[in-house]
């Protein structure tokens, strides 16, 4: 059997909670990831409203805290305090279970996401399969939410969303498989399904998979990038949230905290799929040009980036502080904004300390790449109109799926071209 096939069949299951291999540290990692993602969702909420507002020549939240910085907290408080309504005639058990299932499915994906070579909750040898399988469970929650609401609109919305997610999952899976193929093709027996292994393969092969077999990697990445927007039900595929149309989606009947769980799930899913795309195609935790620009000098230069980012944030915040109106009414807000600037500067200073500096490298680059993806999500929302349902299905089945199959086959052919030539030569000689 050729080496590239056997390499995937490695029997030793490498479950390593964290880098330490003890349940205690696994628990710590789980809490850190859960807390970090929740915090990221809160930040994303504010950033989305602000960025979208600035794209649309308006200010966005400005009232709660300086520049609306406390708005997500105010919103969260409001949602927690709101009445948790279960509609009459609803299957209350399923109705209450649905958001939890969605949340569980999304957060389980984070089990295998490597934020650094040693910063992951666990590393499985079937990491990417686990990811695809678990994230598909989210559909179950949507169907349950729609069905249990005992109302027409959520039911139709749930049917739409689940149809959308199931169809785009296929194209997504094909793109993922072509990336997994790249780990073993054209290189010595490094084939792996482990998320950490995939990033290490990119390091070993001196190429991000988005640029491998140009343009095949790029096309596969493109398919994934489109499918992941549809997977997370975001603009321009945000039919479940199409308020101007008849169906408002599967969460129409939800209110208060449970509704916010759906939102948390949606944003957490955005971060999860972005990190998968980064792991598979964009070199995961690696900094740009780890091979071409290597050496201690370059390492030092790149290790300054985290601190510089926070200094930049501090400078921006400080500039905004200076521009706050000089009126006693705004004093507390100005002080608050100044405090934000100080906190940013402090974090930047801490990140300058060599032991910290070297350890946050991987996580920093990973988060920076996620931020780019999240910005793209917001940008799409500001730019695109919404697809109609039939057009959305057409894009999924008639455009992305054939493209995915073609890319997968071409990747195989290009990757095995030497073997194919050899085989053809033998055929001719016989």
């Amino acid at each position, binding site marked *: 059997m050729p080496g590239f096939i056997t390499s995937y069949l490695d029997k030793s299951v490498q479950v390593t909670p964290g880098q330490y291999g003890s349940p205690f540290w696994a628990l710590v990692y789980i809490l850190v990831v859960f807390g970090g993602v929740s915090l990221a969702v809160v930040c994303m909420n504010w950033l989305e409203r602000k960025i*979208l507002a600035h*794209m*649309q*020549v*308006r200010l966005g939240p400005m009232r709660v805290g300086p520049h609306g910085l406390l708005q997500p907290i105010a919103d969260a408080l409001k949602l927690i305090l709101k009445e948790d309504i279960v509609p009459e005639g609803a299957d209350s058990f399923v109705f209450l279970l649905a958001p939890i299932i969605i949340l569980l499915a999304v957060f389980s994906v984070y089990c295998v996401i490597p934020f650094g070579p040693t910063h992951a909750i666990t590393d499985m040898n079937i990491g990417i399969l686990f990811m695809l399988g678990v994230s598909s469970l989210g559909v179950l929650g949507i169907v349950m939410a729609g069905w249990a609401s005992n109302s027409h609109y959520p039911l139709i919305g749930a049917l739409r969303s689940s149809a959308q997610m199931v169809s785009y999952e296929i194209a997504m899976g094909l793109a993922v498989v072509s990336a997994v193929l790249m780990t073993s093709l054209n290189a010595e027996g490094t084939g792996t399904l482990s998320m950490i292994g995939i990033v290490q393969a990119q390091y070993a092969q001196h190429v991000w998979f988005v640029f491998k077999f140009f343009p095949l990697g790029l096309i596969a990445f493109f398919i994934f990038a489109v499918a992941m927007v549809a997977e997370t039900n975001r*603009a*321009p595929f*945000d039919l479940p949230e*199409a*308020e*101007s*149309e*008849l169906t408002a989606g599967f969460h129409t009947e939800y209110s208060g905290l449970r509704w916010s769980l759906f939102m948390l799930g949606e944003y957490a899913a955005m971060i999860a799929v972005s990190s998968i795309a980064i792991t598979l195609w964009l070199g995961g935790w690696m900094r740009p040009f780890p091979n071409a620009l290597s050496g201690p000098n370059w390492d030092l230069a790149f290790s300054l980036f985290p601190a510089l980012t926070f200094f930049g944030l501090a400078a921006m915040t400080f500039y905004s502080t200076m521009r706050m109106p000089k009126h006693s009414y705004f004093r507390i807000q100005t002080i608050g904004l100044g405090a934000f600037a100080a906190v940013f500067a402090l974090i930047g200073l801490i990140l300058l300390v060599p032991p910290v500096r070297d350890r946050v490298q991987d996580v920093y680059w990973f988060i920076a790449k996620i931020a780019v993806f999240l910005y793209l999500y917001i940008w799409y*929302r*500001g*730019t*695109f*109109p*919404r*697809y*109609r*349902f*039939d*057009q959305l299905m057409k894009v999924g089945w008639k455009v992305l799926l054939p493209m995915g199959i073609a890319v997968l086959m071409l990747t195989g052919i290009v990757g095995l071209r030497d073997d194919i030539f050899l085989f053809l030569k033998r055929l001719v000689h016989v």
Partner: protein
Amino acid sequence: MTDPISSVSHLDLEESKHTFLDANELVINMGPQHPATHGVLRVILRLDGEKVMGLECVIGYLHRGVEKIAEHRTYTMFNPYVDRMDYVAAVSNGLGYCEAVEKLLNIEAPPRANYIRVILTELNRIASHQLWLGTHALDIGAMTPLFYTFRDREEILKIFEKYCGARLTTHAFRIGGCQYETYEGFEKDVKKFLAFVAPKIDEYEELLTTNRIWVERTKNVGNISAKDCIALGVTGPVLRASGVKWDVRKAQPYAAYKQFDFEIPTGQNGDTYDRYLVRMAEMRQSLRIIQQAVHGIPEGPIMAKVSKVLKPPVGEIYHSIEAPKGELGYFIVSDGSTQPYRVRVRPPSFVNLQALDLMCRGQLVADVIAVIGTLDIVLGEVDR
């Protein structure tokens, strides 16, 4: 004589009774409180799955009896009421009414007044089209154009505010001319606006015209043929997008429109995309007209000689103008007293709304929203 309605193709109600596999029709109520019906329009949809088998508009939620009010007011007193019909294009409403009464009185507004009327009406046309574009795009899911158009519409409203003190219901004109002389710097403001808004219209087009999703959502959606348009009395950009070159400004020039050089943009397919292109082109033509008007504005009086108490001779008059939404007509019957015996308005929105059923048949539910948006109705004018 054939009934114009029955000559319209597939408006046969019997046809829709047979649905796929004789499944039950789903009847869904949309509105009167619905974000995409632009006010208080109620639409009863009959669906086969996602396909629209037919629909019925229920109107009257905003009925204020404007026509009846006219019978108890003098001609001058009724003038501000017409602004409340199509509140998005109040200047056009006022112009139509004033000209109709002037025709009845057999007087003519002086040339300077006519020029001011043209400038303000065309500014209002741009404002109305901008509002249409923003809401139409929002219905289809593009949020951003709404904020861009409202930002730029603000500049027009500022000019109105400076001219007459009101932004929306302007009451800009009086019977016999204009009450107010243009304010100091009016021409400069208008010229500044022209230079400001031309690149902005390009900006809207950049966001939408070649946007793949926008094209897919609007091409071949809500098609209506020229024949059906004429049979249903549909006018304005909807008619022109179907390929009929009919514009009251050219066909029966009123105010000072005879003096200006402009084109009537038309489309071919009569679909939502063509109507979008026609309206975008119309905004540019309006800029052209304003450009000519503001450069050639003559000096002179702004009011014709009109007696304080208006007592038109016994008779009746029909006068129509090209409002942003189509042909806006006033039919006024005078019994020789100071109050009109009857005022009947031909509102373009109301007449165009008739075509909704025809345009939506066989389309999907999501398209109904696009078609309501593209008809550019204002419920204040539909219900009056």
